[in-house]
């Protein structure tokens, strides 16, 4: 245990943002590629809303990329808050395949990175601020699901009426419930050990972000969202 903490401490002591970013990209890509077909089936819990009965949870690996996006924003900040999640998606989508919805999923993960970055303060990695991180994570997941499902509706999976939009969001509920449950648990399981390490004198790097990098990083998710919308509308 002590040896493990020392090893992690050494990684953190080496304040190399690129190394940490590559580490996160590798972990995320490996998990998504190797586990995407090995998820267990949905548990036998069903929910009926708006006349549609469906499983309450539809399992996917969203929480892995979501967690890495938030961690990237929180620990690395700057350009890395969107470079890390988008790199994972580019690598894994190239292997697994995707379609136009990637415009929305990629920008959605960039939003999560931005939320992680907005949490980045000197005191954010303390036990007292854990509820704040969890709350922001939940808000980010809701934003991601609202955004990507809007893309699904706009992209033509459902009729372009209010009924179609309502049906789109109703059908998305099992994914949203799973995203909320899995990501909240994942954030807790990762953030608490990081805080533990910090409180046991392991240095957690605090990278300085230059003003220009900060501005570009904040603008990037917005630009990606606009590109996604324009691509579908034009």
């Amino acid at each position, binding site marked *: 245990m002590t040896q493990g903490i020392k090893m992690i401490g050494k990684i953190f002591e080496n304040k190399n943002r690129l190394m940490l970013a590559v580490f996160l990209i590798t972990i995320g890509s490996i998990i998504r590629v190797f586990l995407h077909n090995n998820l267990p089936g949905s548990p036998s*819990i*069903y929910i*009926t809303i708006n006349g*549609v*009965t469906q499983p309450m949870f539809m399992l*996917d690996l969203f929480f892995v990329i979501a967690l890495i996006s938030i961690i990237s924003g929180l620990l690395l900040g700057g350009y890395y808050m969107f470079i890390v999640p988008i790199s994972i998606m580019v690598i894994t989508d190239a292997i697994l395949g995707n379609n136009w919805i990637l415009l929305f999923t990629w920008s959605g993960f960039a939003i999560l990175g931005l939320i992680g970055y907005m949490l980045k303060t000197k005191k954010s990695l303390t036990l007292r601020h854990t509820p704040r991180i969890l709350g922001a994570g939940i808000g980010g997941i809701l934003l991601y699901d609202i955004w990507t499902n809007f893309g699904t509706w706009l*992209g*033509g*999976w459902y009729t372009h009426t209010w009924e179609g939009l309502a049906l789109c969001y109703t059908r998305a509920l099992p994914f949203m419930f799973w995203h909320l449950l899995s990501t909240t648990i994942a954030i807790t399981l990762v953030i608490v050990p990081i805080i533990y390490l910090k409180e046991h004198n392991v240095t957690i790097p605090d990278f300085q972000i230059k003003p220009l990098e900060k501005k570009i990083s904040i603008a990037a998710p917005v630009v990606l969202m606009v590109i996604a919308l324009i691509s*579908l509308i034009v």
Partner: protein
Amino acid sequence: MNQKKRSNIIYTSKILIPLIIVISLFLGGISTGIITFESPNKIINTGKASATIEIDFGDGIAYSSVFTLDNSTVFEFLLEVEKNGDINIETTYWEQFDSYIVDSITYQGTKYEAGLSAYWAFYINGQPAMEGADKIYVQNDDLIEWKFEKF
């Protein structure tokens, strides 16, 4: 009450209150029947059904025919049109929706392909579908309309 004790109560309530709300909503859902633990019953024994299938290609060209199939979904009716040699279809199974989506329908040598600005939608008796085509069983005298919609 001293400051430390008060801040501890606030901290604990930040975790406990959302948890209590989630658990209450879940239990409330079970007691009202919104949440169940049994697979929903699906209508899967419709027997023989005759239905009109119309395909509107959106450029003035349309196809219409009547098919009779036993206990079949809207998707199986479309496959029947293909088996009949009238059209060719391409579909993709979307795991996240547990459904097949029509990518393209080729009719009289022209391929009508869904993309960024067009898609294949279907209607049952004039109503937009609430589920995937492979989830809806066709009833006798149904009118199935497939429309190549552009936006």
